[in-house]
């Protein structure tokens, strides 16, 4: 795959076309029908949650949220392959992958509602919290990779970044370190065509983002990120590279952010209806649905039957998050260090004295 789809030739690795037809059968990963269906359902669940979150936000029940809408195949492919012992280093638009790793929707909701507790990921192993400063998380992935090599564990790191993130110095340093150290990290660029309002062509003059792999002497591939099968295959081959100790791989997954950047963004300012329609045809779920329907594995009826359950489950977790309760005073201080320094104890005490005073003040007023 890496040779045939050399980044130097800027070829796009694809397995199904926009109509869900298998056009590149020799690369089709071997998946049972039920596996494919399972992944489809995960994508459906993620999309349901995603759309619903946007509507919660419109209702003012959640703060900012970065929609995943249209990018589900990338997270789903990672979600399928990532194991308990593997690491996930997300940016902030990888809901599906995080759910597969054991993060709950409730936790994600809590995070976007403004509880740090939503980043504790109590039931999930080896997932880092969402990383806001663009591209900075990639360097952590390289460090985790070093630790894996050191302990000779069977483990792989999946690290995410956006197209905009490839402009940051940390993108360069992370992959360069990973290349020198030959660490088992799969770097995945979700090239959704924009960094907020800035189109990818204004980020870089390079032919593709995948070709940047050459600058680090690592393998790279440009994949149709809306093609679940191509994504899975690209990951499978990347895993092989990592396992052979040949070091990291850079995957550029071509996709499109169908929604807004975040819920406070208005994409009509910087992109056209035509463009959106063009990409709508490449929607990863539509394509997968066509594939499934063709094989009689799934139908609109079945989908309509299952959706209410999904919606309910999303709602249930959302409401749990909403009812999480107040934010204790001491939580502001408690996690700053492994043990609270005296000065922070003093600040907490002083704060509590203030709260008492305020309470008495306010009750006197009444």
């Amino acid at each position: 795959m890496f040779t045939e789809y050399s980044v130097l030739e800027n070829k796009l690795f694809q397995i199904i076309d926009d109509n869900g037809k298998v056009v590149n059968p020799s690369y089709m990963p071997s998946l049972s029908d039920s596996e494919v269906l399972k992944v489809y359902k995960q994508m459906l669940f993620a999309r349901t949650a995603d759309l619903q979150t946007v509507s919660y936000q419109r209702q003012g029940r959640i703060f900012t949220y970065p929609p995943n809408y249209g990018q589900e195949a990338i997270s789903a492919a990672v979600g399928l392959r990532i194991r308990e012992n593997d690491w996930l280093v997300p940016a902030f638009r990888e809901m599906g992958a995080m759910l597969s790793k054991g993060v709950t929707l409730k936790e994600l909701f809590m995070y976007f509602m403004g509880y740090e507790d939503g980043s504790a990921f109590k039931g999930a192993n080896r997932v880092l919290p969402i990383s806001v400063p663009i591209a900075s998380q990639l360097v952590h992935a390289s460090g985790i990779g070093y630790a894996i090599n050191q302990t000779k564990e069977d483990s792989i790191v999946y690290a995410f970044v956006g197209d905009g993130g490839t402009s940051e110095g940390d993108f360069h340093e992370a992959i360069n370190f990973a290349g020198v150290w030959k660490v088992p990290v799969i770097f995945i660029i979700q090239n959704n065509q924009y960094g907020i309002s800035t189109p990818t062509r204004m980020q870089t003059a390079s032919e593709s983002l995948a070709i940047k792999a050459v600058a680090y002497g690592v393998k790279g591939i440009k994949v149709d990120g809306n093609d679940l099968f191509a994504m899975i295959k690209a990951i499978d081959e990347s895993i092989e590279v990592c396992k052979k100790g040949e070091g990291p791989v850079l995957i550029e997954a071509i996709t499109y952010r169908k929604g807004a950047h975040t819920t406070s963004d208005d994409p009509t300012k910087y992109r056209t209806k035509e463009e959106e329609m063009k990409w709508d045809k490449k929607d990863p779920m539509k394509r997968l649905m066509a594939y499934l329907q063709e094989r009689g594995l799934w139908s609109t009826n079945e989908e309509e039957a299952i959706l209410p359950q999904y919606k309910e489950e999303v709602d249930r977790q959302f409401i749990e998050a909403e009812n999480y309760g107040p934010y204790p005073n001491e939580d502001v201080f408690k996690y700053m260090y492994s043990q609270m320094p005296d000065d922070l104890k003093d600040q907490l005490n002083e704060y509590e004295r203030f709260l008492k005073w305020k309470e008495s003040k306010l009750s006197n007023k009444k």
Partner: protein
Amino acid sequence: MVNAINDALDIKLKEDSSVVVYGEDVGVEGGVFRVTEGLQKKYGENRVFDSPLAESGIVGTALGMSIAGMRPIVEMQFCGFIYPAFNQIISHVSRMHNRSRGKYKTPMVIRMPYGGGINALEHHSESMESIFGHIPGLKVIVPSTPHDAKGMLISAIEGDDPILFMEPKRIYRAIKQEVSEDKYIIPLGKANVLSQGTDVTVVAYGAMVREVQKAMVLAKEAGISVELIDLRSIYPIDKETITKSVKKTGRLITVTEGPRTYGVGSEIGQIALEEAFLHLEAPPARVSGFDVIVPLPKGEHHYMQDSYKIFYQIEKTVKY
């Protein structure tokens, strides 16, 4: 304040062809807070433009432009994202003039929204101005009203020094104020005495000024007369205005959003000490953030300074 800043940029873009405005999403989109809205249409893509997503690149190229005779104005999307550019700022922006013994003037303005109170995610609510104030060679400016924002920004653009222009995003649209359409200038480095008072001097800046004003209502009820100083400039500090006031009131409180230790409050307190020790009737006090990371929105109220926290300290200081 958003309009006032836009206005200042507009005036300088029109007046001076060496002025350019760039940063992440400031062009087509007009910035995530719409501060630069409409400017690209007016002045074209060479004068107002989107840059790649890389802060070190943004600030470092701006320095290069300024060396070559331009007056770049760059935006950091949020103050929390200025740190990839930190090396450029501390190693070059603040130093090139001194390093070249004045050969290269480096007029440039780094604008950025800062501060909390907008229910934002991590890295969107910090107030780390004292870090920048500690870097020799920089000027660090914070407006507290639309009027000030416009006049101070024009001054900043016209000055020959590199300037960090920190915009309290919490009051981007909160304060309604008529702002003159004409060009006017507010000199940098001078504090502004907003209210005269006799019992205690309160120094604040940015969004905290409004919180102090709210606290002053409570103080007034309690019969306490507050002198409010809007610091306006984190560096250089207008010692004279502070000292004069503290000598009069004998008491000082500094209200800031950032973490307490090594924050702005300790410097202002130390100035009062050095300049007005014998006039002090109570220890200069700080109302500030805790030494913690600004909590996410559900916990942010614990962290923020509001009128009650400020009044609590006013009472304590006056009763000392």
